[in-house]
């Protein structure tokens, strides 16, 4: 983990423990020790720490550059966004339960009263927010069949959930609503609320206008295999500046496909005039790509991501699974056209069948042009899933090499785990996350 990412995590952890510190400061020497008071305080802490993490998730979804820099790529930012969102939900789930635990020894009926809606809207806001959060995060984590644009639309409602939670915090007869507005607890809750609201409204209202983007036109469309489309885009105005291996959010101005931005890896060399993306029909959106026409206008936002071989400076092993080859195609093209690059690169490209090896002729051509670049193919239907042992048998020496992995989640995790077992440091393993959902 580099120091920027460590610093970013440090800031998140500090933000999360501030309410604990403020609560203890408010109690002074009168820290309660009885069961009822302890569960009550824990209930308050889980609520506020959960809300803090919830607010941070909105900031992470803004795609602001310095946040991307801190975490080493937008794909990593969204990974942290998911972890914090899930952790926030876990904490907030225990918030009402811990608050009612104090009633249970005397009367469970009192506890039940507390958990159910009443005529007090300050409490009801909290209940509605909790139910909404459970529902929306459940959709994100477990309902994988949901169409991407429906999921994305539903995910925006987490902003409404956050607003209801803020109303609950400030209106319910609790610590904050009874606190003086100049006291730490009140100020902290207000700051956290503003941070979260700022992130939410920026993402929903302003991000599409402010984020770096450019208009392109579809120059050519071709098939690169079963359900695999190659789309070449030519700029309508100033082209984007990008590095091979990065990705962009692409919005096709096509009524059949729908104008929803989707992330795709760039499969062309750095700063090429034309931009190439290669898409496999995996989801509901990508299956409709045959409806695209040459000349369609495309909005391209980005570039994002930090998946680039240049950050290494050592001999490298690239491991690609299936459609995960796309960022490597641009990187290989760049190496082929740049004789100054002296790093030795071995690309292990695995697919289920021979026909699934996308752009293999092109990669072989790059291999013939560059003596430092070698392509190794692995057909998993014939040889089984590729393992680090297989790679070691082919490449021989894995020591002092940098590893770049892109492909299905299982492949990435298995390879990473086995590399770490063989003593490869984590900071020499670079992975590109595929799905942001």
């Amino acid at each position, binding site marked *: 983990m580099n120091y920027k990412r460590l610093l970013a995590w440090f800031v998140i952890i500090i933000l999360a423990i501030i309410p604990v510190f403020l609560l203890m400061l408010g109690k002074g020497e009168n820290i309660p020790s009885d069961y009822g008071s302890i569960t009550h305080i824990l209930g308050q802490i889980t609520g506020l720490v959960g809300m803090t993490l919830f607010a941070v998730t909105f900031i992470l979804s803004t795609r602001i550059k310095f946040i991307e820099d801190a975490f080493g790529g937008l794909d990593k930012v969204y990974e942290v966004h998911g972890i914090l969102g899930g952790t926030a939900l876990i904490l907030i789930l225990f918030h009402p339960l811990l608050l009612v635990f104090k009633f249970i020894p005397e009367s469970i009926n009192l506890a039940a*009263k507390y958990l159910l809606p009443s005529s007090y809207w300050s409490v009801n806001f909290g209940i509605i927010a909790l139910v909404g959060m459970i529902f929306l995060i459940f959709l994100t984590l477990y309902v994988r069949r949901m169409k991407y644009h429906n999921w994305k639309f539903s995910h925006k409602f987490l902003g409404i959930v956050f607003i209801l939670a803020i109303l609950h915090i400030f209106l319910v007869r609790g610590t904050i609503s009874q606190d003086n507005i100049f006291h730490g607890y009140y100020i902290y809750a207000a700051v956290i609320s503003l941070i979260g609201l700022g992130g939410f409204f920026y993402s929903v209202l302003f991000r599409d206008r402010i984020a770096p983007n450019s208009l392109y036109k579809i120059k050519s469309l071709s098939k690169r295999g079963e359900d695999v489309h190659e789309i070449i885009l030519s700029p309508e105005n100033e082209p984007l500046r990008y590095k091979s291996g990065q990705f962009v959010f692409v919005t096709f101005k096509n009524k059949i496909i729908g104008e929803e931005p989707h992330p795709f890896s760039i499969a062309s060399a750095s700063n090429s005039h034309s931009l190439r993306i290669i898409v496999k029909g995996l989801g509901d959106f990508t299956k409709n790509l045959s409806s695209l026409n040459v000349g369609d206008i495309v909005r391209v936002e980005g570039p994002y991501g930090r998946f680039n071989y240049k950050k290494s400076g050592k001999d490298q092993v690239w491991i690609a699974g299936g459609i995960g080859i796309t960022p490597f195609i641009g990187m290989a093209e760049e190496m082929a056209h740049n004789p100054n690059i002296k790093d030795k690169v071995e690309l292990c490209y695995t697919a289920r069948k021979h026909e699934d090896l996308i752009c293999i002729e092109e990669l072989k051509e790059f291999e013939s042009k560059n003596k430092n670049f070698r392509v190794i193919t692995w057909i998993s239907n014939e040889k089984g899933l590729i393992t680090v042992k297989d790679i070691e048998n082919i490449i021989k020496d894995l020591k002092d090499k940098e590893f770049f992995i892109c492909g299905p989640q299982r492949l990435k995790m298995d390879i990473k785990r086995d590399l770490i077992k063989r003593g490869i440091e984590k900071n020499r393993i670079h992975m590109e996350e595929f799905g942001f959902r």
Partner: protein
Amino acid sequence: MINIKTSVGVALVIFILVFGNIIAFGILGSKNAIDKNIPLNYINNSGNDNSLNNKTKTSTTNNPTPVPKPIVPAPKPKPTPPPVTRAS
């Protein structure tokens, strides 16, 4: 790496079990239907404030929480006056 999907799943199961038990036992264990207009004094900092029970309120805050007004029984209907009969 933290498997957030599994962690959230486990937390949801615990939540549903605890929540379900509290509601089920809270409702089944009470002979009376739950009063929706519960006073909210219980949310203040006093861990053992049992004002939900409509006992004497013991707020720990500077701003005393108004005690809910007692439910005033509905006025009894006036007895119907006997029919006026013409004096015989």
